[in-house]
């Protein structure tokens, strides 16, 4: 698929030429996670309890805050119109766009997460499950966020609206994502939950692009 490659190339080029879009969500993640011990105290026992939840919630917020760069500039410079009028299958173009966005905004979070999880005293046996759950979970967050972004990109005051629209939809990912880590810490199996997250990812991959296309058509018209 030539168009998928071309879209990935274009998006990654744009992302690397404006590195703020990559670094800012990451910095948000790092700083927000560091604030928690300052807020709740540095008691190792307590931090261990909340580590997975803190990492997941901040990762979720970071993904949501990074969404703005996904369609904003394309909407403003008219590229979105050209994209919607493309004779190539839109489904794959959109998927490629979302995928490259995840590569620059979601993947770095997944890679950094174990470092900050150990700073929050998360025991070793929880680290791999945390990374695995983030690896499967953050693409779902990006896909759902992209739907919200597509719905609000045409509106002038859309920042907080996006949060109101999509944070409730993030609930299952958060629940099962932290559930994976909890199960691992309690020496329960994590495969079932990871499979569940995987099923949700497949569902999101198959349906979210359709919703994104419909939403973009509304925003552009």
């Amino acid at each position, binding site marked *: 698929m030539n168009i998928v490659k071309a879209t990935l190339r274009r998006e990654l080029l744009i992302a690397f030429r404006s590195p703020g879009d990559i670094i800012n969500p990451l910095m948000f993640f790092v700083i927000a996670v560091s604030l928690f011990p300052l807020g709740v105290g540095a008691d190792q026992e307590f931090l261990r309890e909340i580590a997975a939840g803190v990492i997941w919630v901040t990762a979720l917020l970071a993904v949501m805050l990074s969404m703005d760069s996904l369609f904003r500039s394309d909407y403003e410079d008219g590229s979105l119109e050209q994209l919607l009028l493309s004779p190539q299958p839109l489904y794959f173009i959109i998927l490629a766009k979302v995928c490259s966005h995840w590569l620059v905004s979601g993947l770095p979070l997944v890679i950094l997460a174990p470092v900050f999880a150990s700073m929050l005293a998360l025991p070793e046996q929880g680290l791999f499950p945390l990374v695995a759950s983030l690896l499967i979970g953050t693409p779902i967050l990006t896909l759902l966020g992209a739907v919200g972004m597509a*719905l609000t990109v045409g509106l002038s*005051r859309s920042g907080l609206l996006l949060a*109101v*629209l999509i944070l409730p*939809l993030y609930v299952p990912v958060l629940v099962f994502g932290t*559930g994976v880590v909890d199960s691992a810490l309690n020496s329960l199996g994590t495969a079932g939950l990871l499979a569940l997250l995987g099923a949700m990812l497949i569902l999101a991959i198959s349906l979210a692009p359709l919703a994104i296309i419909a939403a973009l058509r509304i925003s552009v*018209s």
Partner: protein
Amino acid sequence: MWQWLYKLTSPKWFYTISGQLMPWLVGLTTFLLGVGLIWGLAFTPPDYQMGENYRIAYIHVPAASIAMGCYYMMAIMAAAFLIWRIKMADMVAKACAPVGMTFTALALFTGSVWGIPTWGTWWIWDARLTSTLIMMFLFIGVMALRSAYDSETAGGKACAVLSLVGVVNVPIIKYSVEWWNTLHQGASSLSLSNTAANPPEIWMPAFFVGFGLFGFYLIAIILRTRNEILIRERKAEWVGEVLSATLLVNQGEV
């Protein structure tokens, strides 16, 4: 049946039929709610565990399930609007959001109030309360999105997409919250939904209140939809006639 449904997609028909139906619906709803409430409040024996407090369940349980049903209805209307471009469907969907939100608010309030003597606190992250809370957020999201759009059609379509995305999520959210609840709390032995285990004389009134509340829900939706029809179809001739007729009657009071 199909023809009747088809006719309902015309605003004029909806307006006329709902107008004719309204007195019956109001009568039936009043009857059902009246019987159910009096029966449930005064004539059923107290619960062996919760005492008289369980009587809150008569409104809490139907409110929560109607709110959820309201979301599904909104999503069905959204699909009808997006697929067949039935404008009527969007008007009903628009009416669903605020009504559904008040019903979730009702379920949350009654649940919390019930919780004070039972759990010793007004809020516990009980499975039903939590998923109702998220339900309310979903309704708020739809309403916020609609009000953010200037264009009526674009806003309607955007809300339709959002409610369809939401409706895929609702069962997943519900399931995830229930799973989370059992993981973290252990099933709380006392939950408002446990009333179903009670003998028939206790849940019979719930039947009446449930259907009564459903009737009321329909009334609320219809009232809002009729307003919406008058506003959006104001250029249609028949609306002009309706308006001038109502204006003549009401000239004194408005």
